[in-house]
Structure formats: C-alpha cells, structure tokens
C-alpha cells in the first residue's frame, strides 16, 4: 500500500460517491453540484495517471463550461422549486437489472480480456508531445472536431433562440 494507492482509493471513493449523488439526489441543483465534484475526482485521477494537461482541460471544460451551462439551463427552466416531485421514472427496477448485467459483463470482460502489464516509466513531457500529435497525426480529426463544435454552437444558438413575437 503506497501513497499512490491511498490517493487512488480516496479519489475513487470520492468520485463514485459524487456520481451516486448525481444520479440519486432529489434536487437537480444538488445533482449539478455533485457532478462538479465527480469531475474533480476524475481530474484527480488523471493527475495520478500523469496526464496533467488533460486534468486541467477536464476542470476547465467540464467544471468551467459544461456544469455552468447545466446550471444555466436549470435556472432557466426553473424546476428548482419542484422539490417533492418524483425524480425517477417507472423503469427503475428494469433499468437496475440491465445496468447490473452490463456492469457484470463489462467487468468480467475487462478483467479477463486484458493482459495487465506493469506501467512503463512516466513519459517525459506529455503536454508538448500531445500538442505535436494533435498537430501532425491527428490534424484531420482535430479540424473535423473544430468544425463539429462550430456546427454545434450554431445549432445550439438557433435552437435556443426564441422568436420574438412580431406585432
């Protein structure tokens, strides 16, 4: 049991607890806040995996971007006051069954199917090589993704825009 182990288990427990909160909390704003913590836990795990850049991006995008967007949407649709409302639909039991089956299968597959090798020595400078990869080997997907983002942005604006009543 090294420090890394302790940190991993702490982070894992933190992330899973937050994730459970996200799914089960009654108040949707609490869900969003729990989601922030889950994202943070995952970012911590990234750091543990020597992926600092990705951790920073995770925090920047998920916490600073997506959660804020979610919170905005929650405030705008103002279901905050609906506190006593049922949050789950009727398919809780069947969903639970499906999820457990899938979880079992995936765990089984991943534990059986992967040859576990020890980790190689940590890479020298991840961020630079990551940037180089994105600009050489993966430049086409990179550009495609940026166009996708642009399209999504335009789409979102058009969807969310409200037609002003003409009078």
């Amino acid at each position, binding site marked *: 049991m090294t420090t890394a182990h302790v940190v991993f288990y702490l982070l894992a427990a933190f992330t899973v607890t937050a994730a459970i909160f996200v799914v089960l909390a009654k108040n949707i704003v609490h869900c969003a806040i729990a989601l922030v913590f889950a994202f943070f836990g995952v970012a911590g795990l990234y750091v543990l995996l020597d992926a600092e850049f990705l951790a920073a991006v995770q925090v920047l995008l998920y916490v600073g971007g997506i959660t804020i967007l979610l919170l905005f949407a929650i405030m705008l649709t103002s279901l905050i006051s609906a506190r006593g409302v049922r949050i789950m639909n009727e*398919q809780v039991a069947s969903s639970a069954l499906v999820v457990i089956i899938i979880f079992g299968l995936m765990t089984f597959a991943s534990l059986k199917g992967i040859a*576990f*090798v020890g980790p190689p020595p940590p890479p020298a400078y991840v961020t630079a090589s990551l940037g180089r990869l994105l600009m050489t080997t993966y430049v086409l997907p990179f550009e495609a*993704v940026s166009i996708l983002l642009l399209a999504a942005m335009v789409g979102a604006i058009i969807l969310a825009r409200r037609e002003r009543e003409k009078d």
Partner: protein
Amino acid sequence: MVPLSHYVVLGTVLFAIGMFGALTRRNAIGILMALELMFNAVNLNFVAFSRYLPVTLLQGQVFAIFVITIAAAEAAVGLAIVLGLYRNFKTINVDEIHLMKW
C-alpha cells in the same frame, strides 16, 4: 503504482452509475448529467490505458480530448434542446413529453 485493473473497474462502475441515471431520470437535464458521467468513465479508461500500455503513444489522451470536445458540443446542443422543450411543453420531464405532434 495502482494496477490498471483498478482504473478499468472504476471506469466501469462510473459508467454503470451514469447509465442507471440516464435510464431512470425523468428530468432531461438529469439525463444529460448522467451522460456526462458516462463520458467521463470512458475517458478514464482511455487515459488509464494510454498510461499503462507498453508504448506510450498518447493516443488514449488524444482520444480523450476528442471525447471532451464532443461532450461539450453535446452539452450545448442538448441544453438548447432542453430549453426548446421547456418552451413548448412547460416541462422537461421526458416521460411527460410523449406527443409526436401537437
């Protein structure tokens, strides 16, 4: 160092939780959140594999970046749709929105 299997199982757990949420939530925004959780679970696996595979080519991290980008796009469009739904139905509980036409 923590063995790879730990990360993989953690990813699976997160994925299962997210999936459960996506299947059972009534609130459309709640479903979106659960989806984001699933994205994160997948990303965790990508990054873990990229770290543990013998040749560190970083493909896993590159892919994770793409996934994050897609997640951002998905959130933006998804939330725009939620706003649109709310405007038309005055609710964002997906099981109440079952009309094909109105």
